């Protein structure tokens, strides 16, 4: 349409159509309700305007009417709620086998790293038709990863991972906005998502890289000495990390958690928080010793130890939980 007067955003992901359909439904419902109320108000105001000698007719109220205009809207609201819940649930559940991209936000830029090792700043290249899962964290304050063309938004928090996903459907370049106010250059924290045809994307991907993220992680894993405890046999002082990722883990205190990105992250930064059953809380914290990027690499490595394709040697950090990585003491 007009370049500087858009009335509808680009529709470039699988989610966009679902959100738009729901939005249009809401416009129709609220349009009807507005029309109903406006018509009634205008009609009554004109029809019953004050006339000499005509008195208002007192009407006390009507319980059946009250019930009608409580229950019918409630029913309509429940339809909206349920439909919205379905759309939300889909948007919050990344499909299995998504391609993974690690996102680190900071004042005021986006740093993105593909699982294959390509790094980008304020720009993310993705192919059409592939599910992309974003594993995001912030180095400082809260940011929000917002791509209007994908109808996708997720706050990015310091101290933990938040997850989002999308599947692009249309090649093009789309805005990436920071949607959570984050300081002076908040409005400058704009990037772009470059959606390419698969062939073009492969060509782009074959550009220089230091190797997959998990390989970087493996190196760090060795350098930090994680390997001495997290061995690939059962003799280590820490749990064997092979095949652990994505599985339920039984903890010392009897709880069970799923070993997801946040659990691995928390276990590295706050190892005592959720200790695996049968192990002692002997692992030191790595808070302040590893950067967000190195953490991402470690997480990618631990993850790679649970994928059949990735032949791993050693194992990684002591598992623990997801949700709020209450960062550890220190500082």
């Amino acid at each position, binding site marked *: 349409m007009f370049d500087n007067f858009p009335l509808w955003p680009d529709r470039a992901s699988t989610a966009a159509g679902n959100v738009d359909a729901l939005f249009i439904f809401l416009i129709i419902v609220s349009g009807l309700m507005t029309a109903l109320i406006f018509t009634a108000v205008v009609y*009554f105001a004109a029809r*019953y305007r004050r006339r000499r000698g005509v008195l208002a007719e007192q009407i006390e109220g009507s319980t059946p009417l009250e019930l009608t205009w409580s229950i019918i809207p409630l029913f309509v609201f429940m339809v909206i709620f349920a439909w919205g*819940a379905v759309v939300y649930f889909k948007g919050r559940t990344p499909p299995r086998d998504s391609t993974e991209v690690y996102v680190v936000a900071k004042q005021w830029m986006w740093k993105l790293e593909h699982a294959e090792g390509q790094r980008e700043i304020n720009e993310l290249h993705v192919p059409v038709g592939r599910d992309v899962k974003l594993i995001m964290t912030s180095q400082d304050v809260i940011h929000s990863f917002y791509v209007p063309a994908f109808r996708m938004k997720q706050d990015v928090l310091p101290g933990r991972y938040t997850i989002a996903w999308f599947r692009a459907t249309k090649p093009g370049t789309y805005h990436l906005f920071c949607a959570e106010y984050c300081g002076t250059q908040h409005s400058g924290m704009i990037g772009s998502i470059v959606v390419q045809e698969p062939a073009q994307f492969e060509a782009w991907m074959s550009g220089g890289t230091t190797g997959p993220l998990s390989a970087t992680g493996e190196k760090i894993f060795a350098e930090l000495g994680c390997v001495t405890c997290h061995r690939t046999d059962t003799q280590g002082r820490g749990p064997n990390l092979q095949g652990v990722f994505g599985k339920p883990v039984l903890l010392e205190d009897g709880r069970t958690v799923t070993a997801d990105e946040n659990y691995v992250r928390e276990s590295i930064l706050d190892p005592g928080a959720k200790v695996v059953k049968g192990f002692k809380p002997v692992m030191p914290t790595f808070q302040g010793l590893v950067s967000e990027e190195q953490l991402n690499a470690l997480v990618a490595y631990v993850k790679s130890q649970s994928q059949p394709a990735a032949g791993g040697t050693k194992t990684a950090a002591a598992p623990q939980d997801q949700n709020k990585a209450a960062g550890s003491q220190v500082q």
Partner: protein
Amino acid sequence: MSMATATVQPVERENYLNKHYGVGSWLFTTDHKRIALLYLISITFFFFIGGFFALLIRLELLTPAGDLVQADSYNKLFTMHGMVMVFFFLIPSIPAVLGNFLVPLMIGAKDLAFPRINLLSWYLYIIGGIMMMHCMLTGGVDTGWTFYTPFSTAFTNTKIVEAGLAIFVAGFSSILTGLNFVVTIHRMRAPGMTWSRLPLFIWAHYATSIIQILGTPVIAITIVLVAVERTLHLGIFDPKLGGDPLLFQHLFWFYSHPAVYIMILPSMGIVSEIIACFSRKRIFGYSFVAFSSIAIAVFGFLVWAHHMFVAGISVYAALIFSLLSYAVAVPSAVKVFNWTATLYKGSIRYDAPMLYAFGFLGLFTIGGLTGLFLACLGIDVHVTDTYFVVAHFHYIMVGGALMGYLGGMHFWWPKISGRLYPEGWARLAALIVFIGFNLTFFPQFILGYVGMPRRYYQYPQEFQVLNVLSTAGATVLGVGYLLPMIYFLWSMRYGRPAPDNPWNAAGLEWKTPSPPTTFNFETEPVVTWEAYNYEELDAPHKEEVPVVR
């Protein structure tokens, strides 16, 4: 004060305005009506400060580039616009001015239950206001009025603690006002003024007071926690110190969502009074309208996390809060339907207060319906933190609350000042406000859906046309808000003296002189009629006899 239209008031009677003179008689007054006027002056001052910030914001957004002010200044502008408008205008506006003035008059009391506490609450407001002004003049704050952590506790170097304390102090003024109203409504009703005979204005203020008393302490505690983390580095909200930033958002919205109802409920009370009077009818479904206020106050406390659907809360928490948000929408819808039904077979006049009430109906309906969009999980992900939200809450808080406030100011101005405002100008102003408001904020719905985030001082080219429309509307709106201030001031000197009951309205407040005497009623009124007894008032052969004088 002349001999004006001789039939009405040959000689100026003694009233609360002329009984005492001098600055001291105002600064140490315990008369709820005088305190209401002190509040009126104070909040009007802050309204124009906040409005000035809004004007600068809209001017900056006229072009995509950041050219009028710098990024940091812009961030301070929208922060201070929000803080001033929310804490120093909207929250005190109707309760502290019209509520203060009218609650005792409407229930037949001589004053509020605690007149000195009432004065104390004004002083607290003023102390908070001075602190806020000092904070703004010496650097200001740049976090947004939402103070999100860890930005506010560990990153910004602006005056968070000072601004927080200003809000903390002003918060106690709000708590004390609420407390005063609750006790007054329980204990000081005139004989015969049963709960079921209370004007809906009183019901609305009762519900509002509950929120003020229960909600405000939570924001006070939250502010203290922010200050403690900022100054002593105790880990509460900052993950680096072992805190949880989402905890802050939960606490903040636990107050700040119900705070919206502190703004809108009193406005709904006013609209009920106005619609009844200008339709000459009892409000349709009185008890449903009354209890829907209480329902809104109660449900309002259970929906706070709908501000946090993309903040990183669990999917199941999001589902529950979405569902509960729809529950609070029902009583709001019920009110709108009842007001509409009240018009049916009425005898309707379109005086300025009624035009504001119509304006309220229109804007609140749009604001409320777009709330359904935001409560809807699937839509909220896309539009939260965009201009869609900005448009929505301005429709409620400015379209709704402020329309009601202006309607109420016009309706009761003759009682407050003893003068009539110029009707023609007032109708014109109501029209200008309505048009200007829609022109300002409707484009922002579109702007939000096409993806423009909030709190951007520069923005991509394609958003310009909609922003220009919005800025153009804001100038119209500004004129609409200036007009009433001008003609209200004008009428205080040149307006025709008001009769005691210029609208021939029901309600005890109209049975007092305009302006009322210091103790409101010379003899204690005894109420023998239901609220909104317009049938009796309009009965053809009945003459208007002031019952109490």
